């Protein structure tokens, strides 16, 4: 199996630790908040406030379950527009109180359904991209599993974007890529390799800034090893970002995303 397919399989494992487990392992006193104040509360997005060694932070993540029952409650980690709007509400709240925002990303993609379209899935994602790009407080985004397209990007316009070793991030699933471009879904492995969706590839093209190794025995068997590293990295990075002048922070964030694109003229 190619490295890419191996990571795809690991990222999607039902045992893979989810956002709530990461929050529990890294932060204290997590207090979950609900609802977008517009329509409802989306179980696919978990968010609230917590303490990182005494520093108040806002934590938001896409939640997947380990059982069918859990997955029904969080829609298998595919947010609806109200989920993205809840995330944005909590980010604006973080901005008001000048708390940093930490997002955890793990989704096959934004939900594709009639209700999601009626309530403006496209508008919800678009709004998050624009508002995150100018949010006046630091944002760190961490890919802990799957990173499926616009539904992942909607929580990933951060000052620093991190990923676990077997995380992935792509414009669409390797299955979708193979069936759309080649009309042959059996070429999934080939697509995964070509799409440069692994942490190593993404580090190389600067889509992510940092990669965190996972324990040899599997993340699900030793979450602490990785969350300790993440916590250490957050404690190093956040105070620096918090000290930074807001305009400098925003200019750096702007440049971070402005640079992407290859063309000739």
């Amino acid at each position: 199996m190619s490295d890419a397919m191996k990571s795809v399989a690991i990222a999607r494992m039902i045992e893979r630790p989810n956002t709530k487990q990461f929050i529990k392992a890294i932060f204290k006193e997590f207090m979950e908040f609900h609802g977008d104040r517009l329509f409802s509360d989306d179980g696919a997005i978990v968010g609230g406030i917590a303490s990182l060694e005494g520093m108040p932070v806002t934590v938001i993540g896409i939640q997947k379950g380990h059982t069918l029952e859990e997955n029904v409650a969080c829609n298998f980690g595919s947010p609806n527009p109200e989920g993205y709007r809840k995330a944005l509400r909590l980010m604006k709240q973080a901005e008001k109180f000048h708390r940093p925002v930490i997002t955890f990303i793990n989704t096959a993609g934004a939900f594709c359904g009639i209700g999601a379209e009626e309530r403006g899935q496209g508008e919800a994602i678009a709004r998050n991209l624009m508002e995150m790009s100018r949010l006046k407080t630091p944002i760190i985004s961490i890919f802990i599993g799957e990173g499926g397209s616009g539904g992942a990007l909607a929580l990933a316009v951060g000052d620093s974007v991190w990923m676990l070793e077997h995380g992935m991030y792509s414009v669409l699933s390797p299955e979708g890529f193979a069936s759309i471009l080649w009309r042959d879904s059996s070429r999934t492995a080939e697509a995964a390799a070509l799409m440069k969706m692994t942490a190593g590839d993404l580090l190389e093209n600067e889509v992510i800034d940092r990669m965190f190794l996972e324990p040899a025995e599997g993340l699900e068997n030793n979450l602490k090893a990785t969350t300790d590293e993440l916590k250490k990295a957050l404690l190093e990075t956040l105070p620096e970002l918090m000290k930074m002048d807001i305009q400098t922070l925003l200019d750096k964030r702007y440049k971070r995303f402005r640079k992407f694109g290859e063309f000739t003229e």
Partner: protein
Amino acid sequence: MNLFGKKNYFSIDNGERRGNDRKRARREPSIPDGMWIKCNTCKAIIYKKEVTEYKLCPNCDAHFRMSPSERIAVTCDEGSFEEFDAEMKPSNPMDYPEYEQVVLKAQKKSGILEGVVTGRCKIYGYDTVIAIMDSHFMMGSMGSVVGEKVTRAVEYATKNRLPIIIFTTSGGARMQEGIISLMQMAKVSEALGRHDEAGLLYVTVLTDPTTGGVTASFAMLGDIILSEPKALIGFAGQRVIKGTIHQELPEGFQRAEFQLEHGFVDRIVHREKMRKELGRILRLHSQKESEEMK
């Protein structure tokens, strides 16, 4: 006499038949040469000369897909359009096999180098930046060039304190450019964020079809969002939704009228009235009076 059963007309794709949409749009760039054409909405065979510069079906008023040059001709003051970044071409960030050939073929068929034309122009004497996407070029998909040209146009507008009008039409991200195409969504959106902070006007005109990553970024960020009648507008493709929920989709799902009803479009504007409508919007956001519009 028609011995070989060959049709003596061509079909025009206006987006009613969704199934082979991508393929069809590539195969049939705008209105081909021929005396007769067939409207895919009302199925009428129409005499080509009856189709005006607005590219409407004379029988059922369906809005056929337009190229940027056709759009400029019916939107901008005559001779006022100055193009930006006309020479920008894609490279191959993912080393996708045969991407260069795919692009060359699309360029040959569409007669343009990439999926968007940007520039500045006047509409009823009002200066504005304008970007017009083209569904005839790889289904208006957004890769590096579309993202960069639109971002530069937005930045130019911010710097020169001008409004920007974007005509959208897109199947979504340019898959052959992988994750780099996804990053274009963030890039354009952040540029629009700064244009917005500067207190400047952004008008989106949604045309058929506007979907995927373009809907989930700049298409939905206009201060004012206009749409052409019956344009397909949505995030997810209809086949994907059907495959996810295993149900038939309701009549008119994701059309402009549906988006208006659900609160995502300000106004549906007939193509013949679009120039006037844009001129009025520009006037109401400007200190300057226009002689022509009074």
